[in-house]
């Protein structure tokens, strides 16, 4: 299951989609909307995606994980639109025969989501708003692509 959705993420179905008779572990990660970032109080977040490409990139992350852990099953669902504090923005479930691999693969998946999936968030505060990611040129892509990306 690799999806970009607008409605609340149904976590149980994300987990169910990676269930497997050979799995001894399922690690689930939920990314949630935090109220305070660098002392600023978030009222809500607005997520936007290049949906068709984002979905392909989620699938690609799944393929990268299976290349490394052949028995892994992966599901990644990211929500877009307006999200309030405590809402689930992303759910990632990974099953593997043994827990160490599931933890490692799940961690890998969220780090890759933050690198190669075209999704952006805008923080809305009581006194303003800003797209994160960001306008300050703190992130540069010297290779013309994020690390690990090839044309």
């Amino acid at each position: 299951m690799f999806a970009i959705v607008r409605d609340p993420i149904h976590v149980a179905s994300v987990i169910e989609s990676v269930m497997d008779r050979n799995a001894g572990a399922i690690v689930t990660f939920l990314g949630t909307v935090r109220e305070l970032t660098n002392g600023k109080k978030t009222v809500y977040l607005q997520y936007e995606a290049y949906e068709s490409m984002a979905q392909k990139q989620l699938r690609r992350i799944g393929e990268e994980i299976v290349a490394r852990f052949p028995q892994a099953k992966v599901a990644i669902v990211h929500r877009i639109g307006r999200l309030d504090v405590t809402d689930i923005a992303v759910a990632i479930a990974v099953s593997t025969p043994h827990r160490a691999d599931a933890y490692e693969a799940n961690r890998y998946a969220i780090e890759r989501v933050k690198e190669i999936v075209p999704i952006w968030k805008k923080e809305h505060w009581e006194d303003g708003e800003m797209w994160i990611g960001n306008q300050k040129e703190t992130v540069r892509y010297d290779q013309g692509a994020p690390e690990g990306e090839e044309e």
Partner: protein
Amino acid sequence: MIRILLFAHIKEMVGKEEIVLSEQQMSVRQLRERLQHEYHLPIVSSLLIAVNEQFATDDHMIYAGDVVALIPPVSGG
């Protein structure tokens, strides 16, 4: 005709969701230069360019009918 999709703050700066160029072909590098001059995007160097949903390097050629997207640093998760 080359369609260029805009997202996040780029979309807000330019004030539209897409730009259409009449070129038959151009390199990604030429596209960057054109965007810098015509739309005065101050952050063109920090944008990734996707051509038909694949990240493309500056030497990559874009042809009429391709769908290009300007990808600012992502912030999902």
